[in-house]
């Protein structure tokens, strides 16, 4: 059931307006915080208010403006989009709180919060995009809006990272543009409201080119190896930026795009017949393992997080590529599972950096005694990544393995297992280091992080547990993921 509802437009518009207000009035600390927090809350309320309807199966649509003849900038909140939008608007609120605490000693805060809001606006725009062109519009805008955040430090290193980031993502954008144009040529439409728009009669070679360009385009932001190069370097950005954008918004937009391509552009049936997703699945599996191995050798905490992100994102890609309902559930759900766990970790890294000034893993010995709550949150996230039952990550791994068996490619279940082991190998030592290795000499005596940093961290950690335990409770996000999957598999 489709309902025309302005709230779909409102959700991105609120953060857009917020960014404008921040640019105008942001020199004043109060107004900057007021608008950032107010808009984040308002937006969460708006998105949440659509949630019951979305769970009932209502799809909200709003046609904003006819962009070119026949193609509008239009918004449509289907189950998949709602899922992504809910995740990102929840995290925006949390991250804003964290950022207010974290950014206090930094420069150029107006610019930071302004572009921060703009990024969230575009992320929700991607989530609600009704057609491929709208999606592309917001995808590119997101690229541009994140640039000032990535190079926030304005050091030569940051500028270099920024250039690298732009080079990668804009090339990706170019691929998507070409892919969209070709899609329009082949299908005559760009809508994402159907489970597949490409005609089965099209020339398989054209379809192959199409699949490659689109997946490569989105794969840049989804950081599939070998397109991942920008992500570790972009970690020079301030931690809230890394947290929201590089673990949640930017990279998830890429993964979300791949889901859209697989489910809404090609459609499951067509892809099953064509078999394009098999190489993609192998590539994803390779990324999962290789990035985990790379993470093992990182001593900088944020870089280890970055490689972990690369690895985790490919869960989503793998889930999409397996083309079974269970795997699809895993892929969609992992958007949330990974987001909350990863943002917890980033918050922890940021808290530690702000409180103690430490950024390297070997410096963390005994930090658990200083900051027990923070490190507890870290532990929760680590266990989630390892895939311990009752933690969010388990849901993904379970369904993904199921999907692998369902599709008859059982070896991907082994990949899951190997990934769990590797995750354990690079996260648990940190936990061990923090809690069980006493500080050599005296502790820093820094104590727990301040509340503005601590509360968001704990909230996210708690949510990881909630996600991990409520997968069968109706009305929780996982139900939404199921709804999305049912739509694309026409169940």
């Amino acid at each position, binding site marked *: 059931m489709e309902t025309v509802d302005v709230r779909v437009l409102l959700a991105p518009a609120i953060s857009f307006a917020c960014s404008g207000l921040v640019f105008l009035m942001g020199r004043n600390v109060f107004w900057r915080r007021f608008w950032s927090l107010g808009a984040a809350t308002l937006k969460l309320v708006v998105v949440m208010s659509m949630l019951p309807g979305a769970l009932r199966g209502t799809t909200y649509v709003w046609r904003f403006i006819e962009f070119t*003849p026949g193609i509008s900038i239009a918004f449509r909140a289907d189950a998949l989009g709602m899922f992504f939008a809910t995740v990102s608007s929840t995290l925006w609120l949390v991250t804003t709180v964290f950022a207010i605490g974290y950014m206090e000693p930094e420069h150029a805060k107006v610019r930071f919060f302004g572009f921060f809001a703009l990024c969230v606006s575009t992320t929700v725009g991607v989530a609600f995009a009704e057609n491929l062109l709208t999606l592309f519009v917001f995808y590119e805008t997101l690229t541009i809006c994140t640039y000032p955040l990535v190079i926030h430090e304005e050091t030569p290193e940051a500028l270099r990272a920024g250039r690298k980031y732009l080079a990668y993502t*804009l090339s990706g954008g170019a691929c998507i543009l070409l892919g969209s144009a070709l899609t329009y040529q082949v299908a005559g439409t760009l809508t994402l409201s159907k489970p597949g728009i490409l005609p089965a009669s099209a020339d398989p070679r054209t379809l192959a080119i199409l699949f490659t360009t689109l997946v490569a385009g989105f794969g840049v932001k989804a950081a599939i190896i070998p397109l991942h190069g920008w992500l570790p370097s972009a970690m020079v950005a301030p931690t809230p930026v890394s947290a929201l954008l590089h673990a949640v918004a930017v990279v998830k937009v890429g993964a979300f795009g791949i889901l859209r391509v697989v489910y809404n552009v090609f459609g499951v049936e067509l892809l099953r017949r064509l078999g394009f997703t098999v190489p993609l699945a192998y590539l994803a599996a390779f990324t999962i393992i290789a990035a985990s191995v790379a993470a093992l050798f990182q001593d900088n905490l944020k870089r280890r997080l970055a490689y972990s992100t690369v690895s985790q994102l490919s869960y989503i890609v793998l889930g999409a590529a397996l083309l079974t309902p269970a795997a699809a559930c895993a892929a969609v759900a992992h958007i949330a599972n990974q987001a909350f766990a990863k943002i917890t970790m980033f918050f922890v890294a940021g808290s530690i950096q702000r409180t103690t000034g430490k950024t390297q893993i070997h410096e963390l010995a005994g930090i658990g005694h200083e900051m027990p709550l923070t490190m507890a949150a870290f532990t929760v996230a680590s266990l989630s990544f390892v895939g311990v039952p009752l933690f969010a990550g388990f849901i993904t791994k379970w369904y993904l393995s199921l999907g692998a068996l369902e599709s008859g490619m059982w070896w991907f279940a082994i990949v899951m297992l190997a990934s769990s082991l590797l995750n354990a190998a690079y996260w648990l030592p940190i936990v061990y280091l923090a809690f069980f290795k006493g500080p050599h000499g005296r502790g820093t005596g820094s104590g727990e992080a301040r509340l503005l940093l601590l509360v968001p961290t704990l909230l996210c950690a708690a949510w990881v547990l909630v996600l991990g335990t409520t997968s069968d409770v109706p009305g929780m996000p996982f139900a939404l993921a199921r709804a999305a999957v049912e739509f694309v598999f026409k169940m």
Partner: protein
Amino acid sequence: MWWQWAHWLPLAVLVPLGFGVTTPAVAGGDGGRAWRWAVLGSALAAATTLALVVRVAREGPFSYAFGGWNPPYGIEFRFDEVGAFAFVVASLGMLAIVFSGRYAEHALDPARIPYFYTLLLLDIAGLIGFSVTGDLFNMYVFMEIISLSSYALVAVSGERTAEMAAFKYLVLGAVSSLLVLFGIGMVYGTTGTLNLADAARRLGGVGSAVPVAVAIALMAAGFMVKSALFPLHVWLPDAHAIAPSPVSAVLSGLVVKVGLLGTFRLYQVVYRTGIVDLAALDQLFLWLGAISIVMGAFFAIFQDDIKMMLAYSTISNIGYIVMGFGLASKFALIGAAVHIFNHAIIKSALFLAAGAIIHQTGYRRLSELRGAGRGMPLTAAALSVGAVSIVGIPPTAGFLCKWYIALGAFEAGRAAFGFALVFGALFIFVYYIRMVNAFYFQEPVHADVVHAGDPPLSMLVPVWVLAGLCLAMGLAGKIPLTFITPAISRLLAPIGG
């Protein structure tokens, strides 16, 4: 209705022409009075052309026969959708003239100021005439008005480099005009008419295709020099970079389009006659367009001078449009035609904003302009909007062209050129990002840049009107696209259809 009054069409040319020729006499050496007179003239011209655009949107193309002689016996003005470029010319010209008020006071010899406005207005009059005329030789006359005034405008600052650039521009411009005139002569010799529509009819029955083909080649070559397609671009960077900024805006945004519009008119004449196979020309346009995109971007990367960079980017953008012509599919032609309009807006915004920055700070190199984003936030923001737009980031005006030409490339089955176009645009981004970095993210070299402050309103308003248009024309892309479509459909309609 008010817009149906027949005389709007000649008035569109005569108003800027009349105001232009009278400017020195009216001003009597007073620059301020010349400015007010010119602003009035260009505003009236914009209003007049607006009436034409309204009429063509409601009723389709219409004509005006001078002296009451029906074509082919007299000169005909024919206003079609592509002719709506006249409106862009008049409005951008008005903004450039408004902008010039304070700029000229500062940058030009006071004795030259009235002549400066005269030439700007005549340039506008010529451009409007060129876009609406339906007669080959009349087209040449207007082309010469445009060329002469443009040459002089480049040199008006009196700097040594400016005069040398103007001379280089003049020689190449004069040669290209002659090529066009030669072609016009051959078309006249074979068809016996100078009227475009009549020539299109009669070309089908000419005895030998050879003169027609050579005429097309000559005219296309001449127009491509005027449009600075690589490798015929040598005159452009100097001329556009050294001219005063409002002139650069007019030259880069409007005057280079003369060649493209001319090519379009040529297409309108020969496309449907079938006497000459245009495949070779299309092929040439495709390749030269692609090379232009890449080479323009390539040279721009090495420029430190901000206006030089913008000038090279014009070459790239001309490449887009020519490539669109070369693809010759419906989407590509629509994209190319719309980009003629959009590039005018974007490039004017960029040049005017750059001009405002140079005017306020006195520096023109990126390395010296570091921190300009802090010193003059509004101007630098407008420049950034323009930069984002010209690179074709959606949803700005520059994106439409990229999207449509990409669609057209697939439509024509030339996917490789779609790739060239889109990745060429990335190349362009490389140098615009340098500009943005310098303005916002790098340590200032000169302290006065940071304290420069935004320019006076008469400069800031035109800049922001244009920057706003860069965004609006992208978001409301449907309007120009649907507006231009009938012209392209008529061009591509099957013979006899």
